[in-house]
């Protein structure tokens, strides 16, 4: 256990902060501490968690992607149109189409970065603008409301009334999110490809000397984020029951902040799925808590920004200084 604390300092401290916030909120608000609210939070956070685990893979491989949220909007339109062509479809065909378009859009980023040696932030800011521009141009800003029924109907996989009168529900977005989280965890910690991604992000030159295929790494990382963006986009459309071209605009920065909060490093080689999920949850919980406390929504962004700043500053500097006993064991310094 001490060694888990030592190697997962970010995750442990995030968990501590989440517990502390929950404790405060359960005392100060009437409705926070209920299972019903906990499951609501999970439902609300699903799409962001799906995006976040995708982005995590890109960050681990040493890249960054600004375009994925807008790409998810493109996926929503593309999928809606394609579903119209095939006459309705269902969840299986919908996820397949959305995932494929997402992978394709991710591959465009990987291609630019690998083939033309454009650094990832520049490449994805460009594709961010291109995707969003194309979307607004072709849709003329018009939303789609007549989506297939299967897509807009709520799918409740499990529900039960609790003794305190609240309902707990597990909906389809939660299931899809759980699958995405587990799949990403398996990819980056249990497969050789995932370890190559870590190695590539940690020391690209070292990875190259081992003969790791650098191009493949870029396509896998951005392709995986594309897949998650596609799936997340479809789930968001399901959740919102409409497709609005600028609904996800700006989401990329929220997700990026949450992933970095979860311990991923801009520059590569570092980050975990657990940290990433906790990062998203911390932000959702805070938002939810502020809501229940009756704080003006206009203050949300400011407070969230401050939390991210404090958390990142703490995790960068003083985990080891705050807990000096952790550093005594086994180091050669």
């Amino acid at each position: 256990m001490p060694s888990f604390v030592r190697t997962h300092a970010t995750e442990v401290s995030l968990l501590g902060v989440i517990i502390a916030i929950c404790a405060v909120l359960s005392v100060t608000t009437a409705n926070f501490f209920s299972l019903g609210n906990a499951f609501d939070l999970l439902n609300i956070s699903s799409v962001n968690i799906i995006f976040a685990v995708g982005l995590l893979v890109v960050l681990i491989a040493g890249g960054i992607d600004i375009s994925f949220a807008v790409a998810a909007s493109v996926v929503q339109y593309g999928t809606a149109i394609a579903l119209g062509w095939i006459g309705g479809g269902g969840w299986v065909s919908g996820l397949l189409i959305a995932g494929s378009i997402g992978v394709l859009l991710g591959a465009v980023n990987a291609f630019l970065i690998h083939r033309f040696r454009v650094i990832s932030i520049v490449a994805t800011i460009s594709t961010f603008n291109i995707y969003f521009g194309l979307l607004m141009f072709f849709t003329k800003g018009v939303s789609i409301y007549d989506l297939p029924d299967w897509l807009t109907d709520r799918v409740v996989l499990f529900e039960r009334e609790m003794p305190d009168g609240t309902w707990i529900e597990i909906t389809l977005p939660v299931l899809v999110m759980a699958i995405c989280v587990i799949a990403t965890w398996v990819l980056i910690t249990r497969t050789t490809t995932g370890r190559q991604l870590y190695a590539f992000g940690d020391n690209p030159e070292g990875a190259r000397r081992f003969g790791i295929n650098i191009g493949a790494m870029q396509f896998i990382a951005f392709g995986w984020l594309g897949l998650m963006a596609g799936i997340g986009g479809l789930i968001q459309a399901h959740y919102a029951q409409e497709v609005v071209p600028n609904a996800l605009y700006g989401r990329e920065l929220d997700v990026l902040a949450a992933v970095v909060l979860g311990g991923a490093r801009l520059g590569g080689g570092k980050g975990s799925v657990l940290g990433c999920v906790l990062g998203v949850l911390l932000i959702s919980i805070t938002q939810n808590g502020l809501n229940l406390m009756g704080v003006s929504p206009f203050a949300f962004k400011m407070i969230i920004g401050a939390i991210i700043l404090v958390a990142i500053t703490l995790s960068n500097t003083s985990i080891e200084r705050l807990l000096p006993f952790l550093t005594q064991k086994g180091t050669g310094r």
Partner: protein
Amino acid sequence: MRFSARIPLQLNVIYGHRHMHQLATAGGGERPLLSLRDINMTFGGVRALKNVSFDVRPGEVHCLAGENGCGKSTLIKIITGVYRPADGASIEFDGETYSHMSPVTAQDRGIQVIWQDLALFPEMSVAENIAFQTVLGRWPKLVDYGRMRQIAKDALARLGVTLDVDLPLKEYAIAQRQIVAIARALVGEAKLVFMDEPTASLTQSETDHLLDIVRGLSASGVAVVFVSHRLAEVLEISSRITVLRDGALVGVYPAASMTQSRITELMTGKTFDQQVRAKSRDGQPAVLDVKGLSRPGQFEDISLTVRRGETLGITGLLGSGRTELALTLFGMLKPASGSISIEGKPIRFSSNRDAIEAGVAYLSEDRLSLGLIQPQPIADNLVISSLDKVLSGGLLSEERKRSLVGRWIADLGVKIGLQQDAISTLSGGNQQRVAIAKWLATDPKLLILDAPTVGVDVGARAGIFDIVARLAESGLAIILISDEVPEVYFNADRVLHMAQGRIVGSYDPRTSSLGDIEGAVYA
């Protein structure tokens, strides 16, 4: 921790040299493990290697010696398949002949390189770093962490080292990382291991441990080709030495017949006669006066005086507090107690800008990453600490800059192409001259040189110390810090020995012998 097997040495004692030779070759057959013939290599019209031959016997420790730019790295890269030599070359390894190698063939056949930058993955665990080849391969497989850990533990056990294989590598210091890199090479079933400057950033005791590991590898039949600027350890560890100069083979010599000065002569083609330069500066006014300076955990109760024109040598192992002391004198660390006076005036630095203002200059021990901004032009590097001297009407003047830079370049004999070339295009010795010039341009009264010859060739070192002597004669007070005792012995007027944060000895090179000081420092 240590290997007891020093078989080659023991055999040498028992059988004498002639028998020894036969025994050494008997193990791997009469043929050498690696045999290179007619190696030529040209880069953009410059011949980097001229008809070089090179042999390594199975299980021997072979040193490849030569100054920077003599072709050592090129040769290593040809053997490991990074470069392809000109036609007509023959590379024979372990019974098979190749006209050139490829990185994959080289690794498959058991040729491993430990690069100077180690090519490790700091965020990943020790086990993954050592057993990294288990996650290679084109198609995804599940990772077998149990097997990975076992491979890592076995490899470390072969080296007689215990590390926590589950910790991320970044938790370990450079010496342990070096060991991880060696362990990784062993996992690849190495028959021949190249080590490029493996001891460059190690302390003496870490170096001793590493040399023991190399002896152990050699005793177990792995041949090691060792590249190092530190000639003492080259003589200690290797059985034969191949010397290259200007891309050509000078010769192959048994280490037993060599001395450091002989190797230096062969490498540079010049002779160096080292003499103690120390003089008494007692009559001169004190420039720096330090009394009872302490920083708990780093150094305690340091008192010292440096006079005008004096060179004070400070030696001691890594971790003795010498660099922390230097950084405190330069205002980058704050002392807990004690006083610093410059030319009689007590001074309290709140940052290194104050120190520069007061006339202190500090040449960092890590020139590559801290001392110089590698991709930037020579001229910009040189004036970065004295920009106020190249202003004209409040703006930078290209012309003043050019003339200031030109003056220093000429004064210190720096060999450059254009002032606008990146500093990274210069050799180690010339980079160090620019770094010194950068500080001289600030008109310092006290110059602190921290390990000024790290990564500098033997030939160029003498040039650096000539400059130091000249600066001292012109009245500059100098503190020369080095963990190589001979450097301070021959070039300083007085030598202080630091250990565990205290000054434990003071020597006058005119009355002490080199052996006295080395005995105390390396004890």
